[in-house]
C-alpha cells in the first residue's frame, strides 16, 4: 500500500504490552550483582574485627536469603517491562474508576516533590533546617481549612481510610473527654458512603448502622431518624454519595445528629465537584477529611501512598493528631507537639511529605477561580458522559431519574444483563481490550450489575466520547458476539485467569516461596532470561 494512509477506524486497535516476563526469581544467575553496598573499611575492620562471626549464637543468619542474583540492567529491564504491562492513569482515559477521582497529576509537581533538599532531609533535624517544607505544610493546612471551612487541618495520614480512622479516633476521644464514651456506642453511615466509614468505626469499637436509600436514591431520612438515639456517637457520611447524588437535606442530617448529642463526620473523598461551591463546615459538620490523591491531584502510586487531610472545627482541634505545624509571630514555623488531648501519633512524623508538596503546588497552580473551574468542569464532564452513556441500550442510572448528578454516576447494566447474560465484570474485562480501565462498584452491589464512572476535570470532550464509544461497542458485542466478551481479554498481557486457587488455603500461592513449596516447581534458570 502507499500513501495516503487510510483513516483510523472509529475505535482504537489497542494491544497491551506482552513481554511474557518471568517472575524475578526465575531470572537469577549465580554471582550476578545489581548493586554493591559500601564496604567495611580496613580501619573499621582493624578496630572491630569480624563482627558477623562475632555475633552471639543463633543470631547469625545460617543461609543467605534466597533472593535472586541479577545484574543491574537486567533488574531495570525486568521492572520496566512490568511497568509497560501496567495501564497507569497517564496512558488511560481513566474515568472508569469512579469514587477515586483519577485526575491528572501534573508532572511539574513530581519534579518539585523530588527537590534534592527534600530527599535527604531528616525529620528530626533542627527546625531551622526545615523551614521551607514546614512552611509548605502550614500553608497547605491553611488552604485546606479555607476550602473546607474548618478551623484547623492535620496532614498526617497516608490515605483516605487512614484519615477516616483519625476522624473516628478523634470522635472517640472527644466523647471520652465528656464522659459519654460508655453511652455512645453506635455510628451511623449510609450504604453509598465509602466502606471505610463503616469499617474504621467498627475497628474503633463501634456498632455500625447503615442507612439505605429511599426510592429516589437519597439516603432515607426517616430511617436515619429512627436510627438516631442517645447511643449515637457520630454520623459518618459521604456527600455527594458514591451515586453522584447530593443529599439536599444534609444540613438537616447534621442538625438531627447534633440534636442527640452526636458529631457529624464528613467523608470528602467526593469533593471534586463541590470545590468552592459548598463547604463541610457550612453544612455544620464537626470534622471532615480530604484525599489529597483524589481531589488535589497527587498520584495514586499503584495504590498509595496517597495522603489524607483531617479538617476539624474548633471543639475538635485539641484532639487532632500530633504534631501540628504552626507559624509564630516572627514568621518562623515550628511543631506544636504538646497537645495533651491529642489522639497521639497516627503516623510517622508529619505526613506523606512528597504528596503534601504536590497538593500544595496543585492548589497554587489553580487558585480560587481554578478550583471552581475544576469543580464545574468535573460536573459538566460527568453530566455530559451520563448523557452519552444513557444513550447506550441496556445502560441505566438508577435513582433520581431525570435529575442531574454531581461528579460521578453509579450506573447499571441490569437491562443488558437480563437480555444477554453478560455481567458488568465481563464488560469491564472486555473494555480493557480497548485500553480502558473500568470498575464496577464497592460491595454489596446495591445497584445491580453496577459500574461507576467519574470523569473528573482532566479529560477532553473527545476522550469522554471515546470512553462512551467503547462502552457502546462492548454492549453491542454482548448482544451480537457474546463469546468475544465472555472469553476476554484478548488484547492484554495475559489471558483469562483462573481465580479459584486464590480462595483455597491448600492451593493459594501467596509468594514464590509458597508456590514452590506447594507445587514443587519454578526451577530457577529454566526460563528464558
Amino acid at each position, binding site marked *: 500500500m502507499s500513501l495516503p494512509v487510510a483513516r483510523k477506524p472509529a475505535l482504537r486497535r489497542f494491544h*497491551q504490552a506482552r513481554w511474557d516476563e518471568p517472575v*524475578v526469581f526465575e531470572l537469577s544467575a549465580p554471582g550476578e550483582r*545489581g548493586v554493591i*553496598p559500601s564496604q567495611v573499611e580496613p580501619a*573499621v575492620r582493624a578496630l*572491630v574485627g569480624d563482627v558477623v562471626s562475632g*555475633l*552471639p549464637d543463633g543470631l547469625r*543468619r545460617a543461609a543467605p*536469603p*534466597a533472593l*535472586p542474583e541479577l545484574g543491574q540492567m537486567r*533488574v*531495570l529491564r525486568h*521492572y520496566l517491562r512490568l511497568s509497560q504491562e*501496567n495501564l497507569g492513569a497517564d496512558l*488511560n482515559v481513566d474515568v472508569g*474508576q469512579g469514587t477515586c477521582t483519577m485526575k491528572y497529576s501534573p508532572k511539574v509537581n513530581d519534579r518539585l516533590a523530588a527537590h*534534592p*533538599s527534600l530527599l535527604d*532531609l*531528616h525529620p528530626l533535624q533542627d527546625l531551622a533546617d526545615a523551614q521551607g517544607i514546614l512552611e509548605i505544610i502550614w500553608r497547605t493546612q491553611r488552604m485546606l481549612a479555607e476550602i473546607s471551612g474548618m478551623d484547623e487541618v492535620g496532614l498526617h*495520614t*497516608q490515605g*483516605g481510610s487512614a484519615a477516616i480512622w483519625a476522624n473516628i479516633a478523634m470522635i472517640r476521644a472527644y466523647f471520652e473527654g465528656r464522659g459519654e464514651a460508655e453511652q455512645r456506642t453506635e455510628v451511623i453511615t449510609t450504604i453509598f458512603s465509602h*466502606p471505610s466509614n*463503616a*469499617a474504621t468505626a467498627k*475497628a474503633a469499637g463501634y456498632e455500625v448502622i447503615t442507612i439505605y436509600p429511599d426510592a429516589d436514591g437519597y439516603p432515607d431520612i426517616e430511617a436515619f431518624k429512627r436510627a438516631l438515639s442517645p447511643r449515637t456517637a457520630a454520623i459518618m457520611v459521604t456527600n455527594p454519595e458514591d451515586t453522584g447524588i447530593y*443529599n*439536599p437535606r444534609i*444540613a438537616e442530617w447534621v442538625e438531627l445528629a447534633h440534636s442527640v448529642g452526636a458529631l457529624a463526620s464528613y467523608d470528602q473523598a467526593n469533593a471534586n465537584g463541590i470545590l468552592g*461551591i*459548598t463547604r463541610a463546615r*457550612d453544612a455544620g459538620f464537626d470534622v471532615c477529611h480530604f484525599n489529597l490523591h483524589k481531589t488535589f491531584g497527587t*498520584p495514586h*502510586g*499503584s495504590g498509595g*501512598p496517597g495522603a489524607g487531610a483531617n479538617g476539624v472545627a474548633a471543639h475538635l482541634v485539641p484532639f487532632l493528631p500530633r504534631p501540628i505545624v504552626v507559624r509564630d509571630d516572627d514568621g518562623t514555623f515550628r511543631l506544636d507537639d504538646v497537645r495533651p488531648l491529642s489522639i497521639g501519633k497516627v503516623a*510517622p512524623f508529619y505526613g506523606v*511529605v*512528597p504528596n*503534601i508538596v504536590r497538593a500544595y503546588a496543585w492548589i*497554587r*497552580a489553580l*487558585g480560587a*477561580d481554578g478550583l471552581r473551574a475544576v469543580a464545574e468542569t468535573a460536573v459538566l464532564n460527568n*453530566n455530559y458522559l451520563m448523557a452519552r452513556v444513557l444513550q447506550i441500550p441496556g445502560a441505566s442510572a438508577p435513582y433520581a431519574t431525570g435529575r*442531574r448528578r*454531581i461528579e460521578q454516576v453509579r450506573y447499571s447494566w441490569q437491562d443488558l444483563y437480563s437480555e444477554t447474560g453478560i455481567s458488568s465484570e465481563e464488560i469491564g474485562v472486555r473494555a480493557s481490550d480497548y485500553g480502558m480501565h473500568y470498575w464496577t462498584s*464497592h460491595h454489596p452491589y446495591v445497584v445491580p450489575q453496577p459500574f461507576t464512572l467519574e470523569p473528573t*476535570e482532566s479529560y*477532553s*470532550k473527545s476522550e469522554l466520547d471515546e470512553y462512551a464509544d467503547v462502552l457502546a461497542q462492548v454492549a453491542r458485542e454482548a448482544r451480537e458476539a457474546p463469546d468475544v466478551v465472555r472469553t476476554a481479554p484478548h488484547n492484554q498481557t*495475559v*489471558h483469562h*485467569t483462573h481465580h479459584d486457587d486464590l480462595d483455597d488455603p491448600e492451593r493459594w*500461592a*501467596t509468594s*514464590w516461596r509458597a508456590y514452590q513449596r506447594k507445587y514443587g516447581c519454578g526451577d530457577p534458570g529454566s526460563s528464558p532470561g
Partner: protein
Amino acid sequence: MSPMSAPYAHPYVPNSAPEARAAMLAAVGVTSVDEFYADVPDALRLHRPLDLPPALVAEQDLARHVTGLLDRNRPLAPGRSFLGAGTYHHHVPAVVDEVIGRSEFLTAYAGEPYEDHGRFQALFEYESLMAELLAMDVVTVPTYDSFQAASTALAMAGRITGRRTVLVASEVLPDRRSRVHDFVRPYLDLVDVPPRDAIADLPALLAVLDESVAAVWVETPSHTGAIETRLAEVAEAAHAVGAIVVVSTDPICYGVLTPPASHGADIVCGDLQSLGLHAYYGGAHGGFLAVHDDPRFVMELPSRIFGLAATDVPGEYGFGDVAYERTSFAVREEGKEWVGTAAALWGIAAGVYLALQGPQGMAELGETILARTRYAQQRLQGIPGVRLGDDAVHFREFTIELSGVSPASVVERLRPLGIAPGVPLDDQRLLICVTETNTSDDIDALAAAVAAILEEDHR
C-alpha cells in the same frame, strides 16, 4: 468574574475552554452548570470566591515559587547526619527511583489484574522477595507504615486468641507505641515488661506470662538499636501458654541476622523505608506484615495479598486477590479492620531494592552496618565522659550516656560543624544512628567533635 468565563483554559482543565464548554452544555441540554447543582441548597452555597493565594498558572512561576520555598531547607551533607529514630538515611539505588518514577506505576491505582498486570506482578514479587528475606510464606501488599503494621499485628493476635493482654518485652519506638495504643485500646491492654540491659527480661516476662496473654511484642532492633538475643526462649514460653509472638523489626538487617520466624515469631511487621526510600523528611514510610501460611493468621490480615494464578495459556502467570472476602472492600464493617490506599508504590520500591541487592548485597550491607555501628560505639566509648547505654548487640542505633554535658547541648554545639550527632532521649542519653551512608571518616569526625566538647567542658 464567573470562573467559567476565565479568559483562558487552564492547562489542567481542558473543557474549561469556551468552545468545548458550550458544545457540552448544549449536548446535555442545559444553559448553565448551575443546573447541575440544583440539589445543593442556596443556604449551603459559598457565595464568594475561596480566600486563597493568587493562582500561579504559568508553570514557570509555580516552579519558581515552590522551589524558592524548598531551597530554604538545609539537609546535612552526606554522612554527617546520625539521626534515626524511625527514619533512616540509607543509600537509594538509582534504579529504584527510576522504576517508581515510571508514569505507569506512579499514576496507576486500582486497575484489575488484566490491564494492571505489571502492578500485580511487581507487588507479588515484592511479597515474594520479602518472604525470602523474612523466611515466611505470606507477606501482604504494604500497609501505611510500621505503626499500622504493628497495630494490626497485635489486633490480629487479639482476634485469634480472644485474649486482652499484650506483654511489651522491648523498648519500642515511642511514637509507634502511641499509635498502637490508640488503635488497640478497645480490646487490648499493653503491659510493659521493661527490658534488662536492652533485651527482654526473661524471668520478669515468665512471671507474668499466662493464658490471659494474647501476644508478646518484641521489637528488634529496638528503639535503641538493641538486637533481641532471647527471642527463641520468649517464643517458646509464649507458645506454651497459647500466646502469639509479634516481632516489629526493620527488614534491612536480615541479610546477616537470623530472621525472627526462625526463632519462633508468628507475625513479623515493620517499616519499608530502609529498603530504597529516601528520608523525605519522614514522609516515605510503608508497613509490611508477614505471617506463616496458616489460614488462622492469613484470614485475619486486613490488607490485600496478590497471589499467583494460572491462565488459559500454558506458561503464563496471572495474578489475583488471595481470600478477598476477608477485606472491607468485600464486606464493609464485617471485614478485618479495613483496607484502602496505603503504600503500594513503596512496596514496588522495596521489591526493586531487594532484587538489586540480592543475597550477597543484603549480607554485605548488614555487615557494613553492624561493623560501623560497632566502630562508632568503640570510638565514642573511648572518650572520657561518654559510656555506652548498654552492653547489648546493636544494629544501626545505640545510645551513649553523657556525663557533664547534656545531649541537647551536644546537638546544639555540633550544629555549626554541620554534624547532627543524634537524637536526645532524655537528659543523659543520646540516640546515635549509623548506616552505610556514614563512613569511618564521618564517624571519626563525630567522635572528634564529641571529644572536643567534653574536653573543653572538663578543662
